[in-house]
């Protein structure tokens, strides 16, 4: 895992250099440029990692709630003291660097979740447990949403994977899935058609399950139908009123409702052009024209994968995708061999968060996920995210090293 970590961080650094590279600042160590600064972040991350490994493994379990509460305080504080960058008030300004607490909130939330669900024989089927779990995840989400940092907040949805592993019932999972599918369909399809489809499936459900047919069940199905119909309209209402216009547009572009390569679809289109022009072997290190010349927005942060795709081609991108899959799967396998529930759940938390970022970030650069402003773990430029992911991963590494001592 440490090897994979090092590999990804170095790939990130090289590609940030390539993305920002210009003739005036040739040195990769130039601190005035993003790649120079990323080196600072990398070095400090190594120090952090060593520090984490030095701390007693029991500390994380013991202090998880305290860290979690501290983080909530910071999240509230940033609402009042934070600095606004591109519309989100999510940063503390410290000299020339800024820190984004919401990145670290993922770590503390994972810890708190692991602690809560790992304490006793928690029964995920009880309403009380469910409520507490939702609160642990929900409070930071709400605070981050208040910061107007929707992207980061959305990443907390990744914890669903943890809940799934820990035994959340299939019904809840399926209901969730149904709601997601219904939401998408209600944006894409004509409402009457969709309601028609729902009604037909409801009637079919009633007739197919002949033997268990009772008035109660029929009423339940009909009740669900009414709920679903209401939901279809609610989605539209929420979409139009709750989401910001640029968020609506990003969803619309992804779903193919609107297509405007120069306007709202610009980011994705340019990103696809950059990646697509890479070919099999890519254009070579520093040879990328699309990313280097700022055609792709945020190319050293959220769209860093474009540089990989353009300069290293299909080969390089596949390797990077492979590295992520390998890392995440390894974390899961290691999580499974943990002896404490805390360590296992935390491991799953790490894997889930990494996976969500990986899936959404790369997905958006190749046009299969909506554009959500989140970093690609370890690769993207940014101190907060690199630190946060490093801390997150190395806590698990420490737990894994000490797994035989932790009971």
């Amino acid at each position: 895992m440490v090897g994979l970590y090092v590999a990804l961080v170095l790939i990130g650094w090289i590609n940030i250099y390539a993305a920002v590279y210009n003739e005036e600042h040739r040195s990769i160590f130039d601190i005035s440029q993003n790649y120079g600064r990323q080196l600072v972040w990398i070095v400090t991350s190594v120090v952090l990692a060593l520090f984490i490994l030095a701390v007693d493994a029991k500390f994380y379990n013991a202090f998880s709630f305290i860290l979690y509460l501290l983080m909530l305080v910071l999240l509230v504080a940033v609402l009042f003291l934070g600095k606004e960058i591109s519309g989100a008030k999510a940063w503390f300004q410290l000299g020339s660097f800024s820190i984004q607490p919401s990145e670290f909130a993922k770590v503390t939330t994972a810890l708190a979740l692991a602690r809560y669900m790992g304490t006793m024989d928690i029964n995920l089927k009880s309403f009380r447990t469910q409520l507490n779990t939702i609160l642990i995840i929900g409070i930071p989400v709400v605070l981050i949403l208040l910061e107007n940092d929707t992207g980061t907040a959305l990443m907390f949805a990744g914890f669903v994977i943890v809940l799934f592993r820990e035994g959340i019932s299939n019904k809840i999972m399926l209901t969730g899935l149904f709601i997601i599918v219904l939401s998408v369909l209600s944006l894409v399809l004509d409402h009457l058609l969709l309601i028609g489809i729902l009604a037909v499936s409801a009637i079919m459900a009633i007739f197919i399950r002949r033997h268990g047919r009772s008035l109660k069940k029929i009423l339940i199905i009909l009740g669900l139908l009414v709920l679903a119909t209401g939901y279809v309209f609610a989605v539209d209402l929420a979409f139009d009123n709750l989401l910001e216009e640029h968020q609506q547009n990003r969803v619309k572009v992804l779903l193919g409702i609107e297509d405007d390569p120069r306007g709202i679809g610009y980011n994705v289109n340019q990103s696809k052009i950059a990646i697509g022009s890479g070919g099999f072997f890519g254009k070579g290190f520093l040879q990328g024209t699309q990313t280097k010349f700022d055609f792709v927005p945020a190319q050293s942060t959220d769209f860093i994968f474009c540089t990989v795709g353009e300069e290293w081609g299909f080969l390089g991108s596949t390797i990077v995708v492979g590295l992520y899959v390998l890392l995440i799967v390894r974390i899961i396998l290691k999580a499974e061999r943990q002896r404490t529930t805390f360590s296992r759940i935390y491991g799953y938390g790490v894997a889930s968060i990494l996976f969500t970022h990986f899936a959404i970030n790369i997905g958006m650069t190749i046009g299969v996920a909506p554009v959500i402003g989140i970093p690609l773990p370890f690769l993207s430029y940014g101190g907060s995210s690199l630190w946060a992911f490093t801390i997150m991963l190395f806590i698990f590494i420490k737990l894994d090293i000490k797994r035989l001592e932790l009971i």
Partner: protein
Amino acid sequence: MKAQDEQRKLIIIGFILLIGVIFIFRLFYLQIIDKSYILSAQNNVVRVITQYPARGLIYDRHGELMVYNEAAFDLMVIPSQVTAFDTLEFSQLIGLDKEEIKERLMKAKKYSMRKASIFEKQISKESFSFFKEKLHKFPGFYVQSRTLRYYPTRIAAHTLGYIGEASPMTIEEDPYYKSGDYIGISGLEKTYEGVLRGKKGVKRVLVDVFGREKGSFQEGKFDSTAVKGQDIYISIDAKLQAYGERLMTNKKGSIVAIEPSTGEILALVSAPAYDPNLLVGRVRSTNYQILSADSLQPLFNRALSATYPPGSTFKSINALIALQEGISTPSTTYGCQGTATVPIKCSHYHSNPLNMYRAIEISCNPYFWQTFRSIMVSRSDIHDSYTMWRRHVLSFGFGARFNSDLFNESKGFIPQPGYYDKYFGKNGWKALTIRSLSIGQGEILATPLQLANFAAIIANRGYYYKPHLLRSINDSIPDADYREKMMTTISPVHCQVVVEGMSRVMDGPEGTGRWYRVPDIAICGKTGTAENPHGKDHSIFVSFAPKDNPKIAVAVVVENSGFGATWAAPIATLMIEKYINGEVKRLNVEENMVTSNLIDSR
């Protein structure tokens, strides 16, 4: 581990692998299968920038610079880079009021936030240097240079012509031109467009999303440098041209001076003229409208495009034809009863009868009517006679264009026999019907250029070189066409008769031009007074000098001014004096010509 947990672990891992595989497939599609993205990438970053060459310069025959390029500056703006600025200071610098500035900024924004658009066209060099120091105060604004034509001598506007943006039609016809390119529109600028324009170069640069240049594309492998246009030397004598324009001040008409031994045009004056600098740069369209609305038609190049009845200057031709055809001899005499003569009266009082020399000296109408009549009855059919006559006339270059390097020549008009058939019926006309032709009136029309060429023919005793303007392009002398002797149908011996006659016009006791002798130059000339339907007669004079080994042939037309001897003759002799002696001693004549206003007194 519970079975359910094991199962869910596998589901989760499977899901992660699935996403990974989907990504790899998607990447495979984007990067390997779909080639369109590679093309998009090229369009995105390589921008083709045209390098404009400097246009060739134009020099006169003595190497005096007549047209050169001067840098002008367009003030450009990129709205997205504009920050709040001191509009008061800006408006003082640029000379626009606040409202106008705001309006133009809005216009630029509407065009594009990130692309540059012209804020103010062609600011002067002075305001540019002033502006340059302050430019840092106004981010988003910058200055782009562009070359304009300048005419230091301020003369020969019609001859030099002007340049302007290529029309959509031109762009469609010739792929060399792109929208906004300059092209010669009239005069030499048009005729020698291909020589003067040079060759545009192409530079391919990589640009980023904001259109900022980031260096050359593939080390400039595909670039071509602009090739400067070639300089041309023209036959115009700038001093003579300027003098001619001065003489024509406040007159309508033209002067054409030709070097008979080469056909090179020394001066080509059309009056009223205009300052060629008026049709340059930002003032061009305004001035063009003013000039084209002027009832005196200053844009019209009378020297090449206007046609006049040649009047009495044409009598010499009839004399030459009669001599050539053996119808007359120099000593053939006809009688003249002065104003009582039929069918054409004589306006002069002179001794009687008279031979050809004296007829030319005095410009006796009846004499040339008799000559013309003899020509027209020399064949049994008037058609044959007229066709013969016309063939001789055409050999002088009348009735057709020379098709050298002159812009917008008129053909003039020498009617075909069919023309008269149409008017009078096939057998309805005879010499008497077309008697006006004997004295250069009637249907025939000639341009001042043709008249000057006619003078050059007499000077050469029977041949000419195509009148033209080009001397050399970058020291190489082109176009053998201009060095081909164009023979007329008339033998030199007969021409000598007319030379003598024209000499007596100036030197004879009754010569119609005798008042404007130049003491030490033997000038040969012929006056003409062209009646015309547009008012007072045109005053015409054709001449050359010196009589032997002529250096210059001049034709002058002064519209609606009266007798040929009154205006055209003095102007022509002043031109000759100026050209041959380099200075004019007859200052009273010069003064009189320059100060006379024949436009307002009309």
